């Protein structure tokens, strides 16, 4: 339990400093994911018990190099650390510092100290410092900063007891961590800039503390810009900043540089007193990067690595998927046997249990993919991916980092869309969000699995060719997503090119608990978002297929009766209504029913087709029965429904159509408008329809069937 009224400790630091590892070490399994009030950025809060302060809450602030901000997301750091409304003001800030990159990390520490909150510095990775032969004189640094400094090795849990004690001490005696301003950026003109802006700040920002007022004025001077995307900046502040900056420019000054250089000058003047650097030597990172960032070998390695990841996704997840399926089947039949036959039992077994099952089968693959992504992040390889992908991403107006959410899109678009929150510009975020659902997510796999199987006659399975077809679908979706980003980036989302500034952290051994926790958190997002929507849609589809009940003459064959039920149900009617639109793509009305179900969630297609073709509900894509049933479907004229061409056309349709309510719901929430999900739905559906039409009609013209 996290006490609601305990003291609040904020954890801040540069990216790649082991901040999250420290958070996990301090809070153990108590961490809960929540949203910051007023914004949809998630953060973690965990509990920590201290001897004197009792239960305190620890809040993980997004990693940042500086408190200055351009976007609402970056602005979170200042809001969380300074405790600007509506975020609660922390009682203490722990600044996590990578001791191997001390001077750059101290820049953020100075900013945090300026805000006038008690600070404790956690000097992390001191083991690697020693390994390199560098030395930090902790006492000397403590004297300069006048805040308590605790050397730690977060990944091994070293120094954490001392850190807890120090936090406890400072919570009891806040003055210990409140040194007042350290590197005051000086100069009479800059002083005037600060004063002018400070006068315009709302009272609730500075809360009667004049030091804090100066700090926030300085923050505004660095952050506000003509085209920034900041929240809740009063117009008067905005005007004051822009006026002062214009004035400075006329006088040949650059406020940004004066402030930033001022802070760094303070650090550099003192660095000799607390930092002794050993001469540089070749590191393991140098040797590894020589291969992984090699123009040719590096790129090839990346492609091979991705292939291995996807391959293992299938082979490793398969047993788990089978287990879940048989479990759901057992539960279903147990419930069916225990309850009297009837409508409610039907609903429970086919609708609820089947629906939950259809969500759960994705879990193994999603867990695995997020495990790999977490591993790539934690070892530092993700920055190398961004390095390798930048040229391609730049061509479509994004930068290499944007490839990361696209990678998550291979698992599920929902967490991938949430992952775009880290992007600096709204335009980049929107653009990425719009194309992520085109990536081959795991919900498409059962559909592809069924259709690829149907392409081959029974007993003539060709695992290699089938596997290659699957790979081709991945490639197809990636290329189309990049092409769409290219087109959208030049039309709807025109904007200046985003410069790339990418930190290349040294390679590190992953901290397994952090990787596993991240994997679970992302997967939980999927379960929560997709779970509810898919469950509701499966039940709705089941109802549409079951009503109105068709009247069957006694004595009629059961199979015929079931066929009649499908034909006369609401779903059957909708399917026939849809037939004229989808006939040019090679689909009949029964496929139409499947498509209606699939518009809620793609995988519902498989279970719907099982119902349509009168098979029990627990059939799935691997069941031989459904495959055979699909192969043997005939049109009224006796020709087979699932010709190779129809299968291809259907696969292309599934690759491109926006058939996922959860994605649309998340886009609505993230953009705050109905316009964007409607646009996404429209452009993807049109794209899918036209592409399938081209495949089917073009194929027929070329003489395929």
């Amino acid at each position, binding site marked *: 339990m996290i006490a609601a009224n305990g003291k609040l400790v904020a954890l801040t630091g540069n990216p790649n400093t082991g901040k999250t590892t420290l958070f996990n070490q301090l809070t153990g399994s108590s961490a809960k994911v929540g949203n910051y009030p007023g914004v949809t950025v998630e953060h973690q809060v965990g509990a920590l018990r201290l001897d004197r302060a009792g239960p305190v809450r620890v809040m993980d602030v997004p990693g940042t190099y500086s408190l200055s901000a351009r976007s609402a997301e970056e602005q979170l750091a200042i809001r969380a650390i300074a405790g600007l409304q509506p975020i609660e003001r922390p009682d203490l800030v722990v600044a996590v510092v990578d001791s191997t990159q001390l001077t750059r990390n101290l*820049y953020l520490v100075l900013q945090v100290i300026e805000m006038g909150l008690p600070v404790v510095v956690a000097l992390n990775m001191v083991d690697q410092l020693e390994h390199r032969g560098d030395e930090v004189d902790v006492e000397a640094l403590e004297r300069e900063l006048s805040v308590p400094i605790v050397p730690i090795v977060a990944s091994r849990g070293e120094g954490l007891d001392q850190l807890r004690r120090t936090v406890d001490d400072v919570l009891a005696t806040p003055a210990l961590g409140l040194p007042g301003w350290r590197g005051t950026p000086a100069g009479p003109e800059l002083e005037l800039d600060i004063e002018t802006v400070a006068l315009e700040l709302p009272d609730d920002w500075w809360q009667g503390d004049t030091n804090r007022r100066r700090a926030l004025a300085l923050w505004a001077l660095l952050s506000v810009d003509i085209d920034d995307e900041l929240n809740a900046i009063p117009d008067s502040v905005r005007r004051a900043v822009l006026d002062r900056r214009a004035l400075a420019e006329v006088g040949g000054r650059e406020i940004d540089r004066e402030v930033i250089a001022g802070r760094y000058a303070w650090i550099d003047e003192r660095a000799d007193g607390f930092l002794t650097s050993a001469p540089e030597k070749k590191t393991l990172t140098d040797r590894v990067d020589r291969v992984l960032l090699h123009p040719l070998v590096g790129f090839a390695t990346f492609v091979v690595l991705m292939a291995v990841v996807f391959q293992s996704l299938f082979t490793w997840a398969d047993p788990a998927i089978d287990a879940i399926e048989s479990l759901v089947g057992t539960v279903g039949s147990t419930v069916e046997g225990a309850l009297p036959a009837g409508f409610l039992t039907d609903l429970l077994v086919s609708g609820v249990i089947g629906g939950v099952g259809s969500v759960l089968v994705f879990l193994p693959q999603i867990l695995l993919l997020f495990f790999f992504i977490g591993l790539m992040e934690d070892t530092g390889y993700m920055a190398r991916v961004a390095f390798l992908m930048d040229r391609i991403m730049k061509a479509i107006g994004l930068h290499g980092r944007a490839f990361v959410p696209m990678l998550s899109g291979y698992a599920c678009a929902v967490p991938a869309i949430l992952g775009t929150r880290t992007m600096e510009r709204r335009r980049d975020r929107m653009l990425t969000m719009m194309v992520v659902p085109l990536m081959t997510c795991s919900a498409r796999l059962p559909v592809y699995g069924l259709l690829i199987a149907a392409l081959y006659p029974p007993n003539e399975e060709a695992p290699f060719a089938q596997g290659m077809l699957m790979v081709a679908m991945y490639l197809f979706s990636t290329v189309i997503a990049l092409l769409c980003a290219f087109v959208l980036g030049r039309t709807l989302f025109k904007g200046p090119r985003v410069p790339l500034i990418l930190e290349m952290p040294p390679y590190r051994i992953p901290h397994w608990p952090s990787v596993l926790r991240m994997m679970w958190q992302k997967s939980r997002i999927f379960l929560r978002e997709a779970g509810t929507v898919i469950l509701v849609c499966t039940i709705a589809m089941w109802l549409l297929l079951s009503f109105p009940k068709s009247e069957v003459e006694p004595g009629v064959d059961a199979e015929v009766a079931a066929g009649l039920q499908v034909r006369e149900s609401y779903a059957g009617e909708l399917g026939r209504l849809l037939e004229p639109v989808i006939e040019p793509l090679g689909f009949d009305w029964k496929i139409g029913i499947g498509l209606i179900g699939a518009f809620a969630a793609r995988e519902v297609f498989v279970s719907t087709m099982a119902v349509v073709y009168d098979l029990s509900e627990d059939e799935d894509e691997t069941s031989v029965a459904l495959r055979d049933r699909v192969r043997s479907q005939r049109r009224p004229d006796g020709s087979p429904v699932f010709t190779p061409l129809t299968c291809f056309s259907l696969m292309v349709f599934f690759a491109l159509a926006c058939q996922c309510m959860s994605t649309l719901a998340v886009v609505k929430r993230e953009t705050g408008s109905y316009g964007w999900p409607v646009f996404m739905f429209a452009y993807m559906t049109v794209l899918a329809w036209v592409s399938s039409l081209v495949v089917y009609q073009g194929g027929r013209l070329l003489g395929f069937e």
Partner: protein
Amino acid sequence: MKTSLDTLTAGARAQLVAIGGKRSFRRRLMELGLLPGCEVRVVRNVEVHGVMELEVRRSRLTVRLSEARELFVEST
């Protein structure tokens, strides 16, 4: 001799003298410690990928060659 940063090859060291480009780009670079007057080492310059990796203050940053063209250095 003053040259733009993108012309330097792997292993070269130079002193940064001027940063050009958009304000947000300049500000971010400066906040990472890439200030005029500081020493920069080129870790790699990969023309194929259009990017170069720099070492500043013991940390490594990748920037695009097209953007490094606006950073000026003097060789030391």
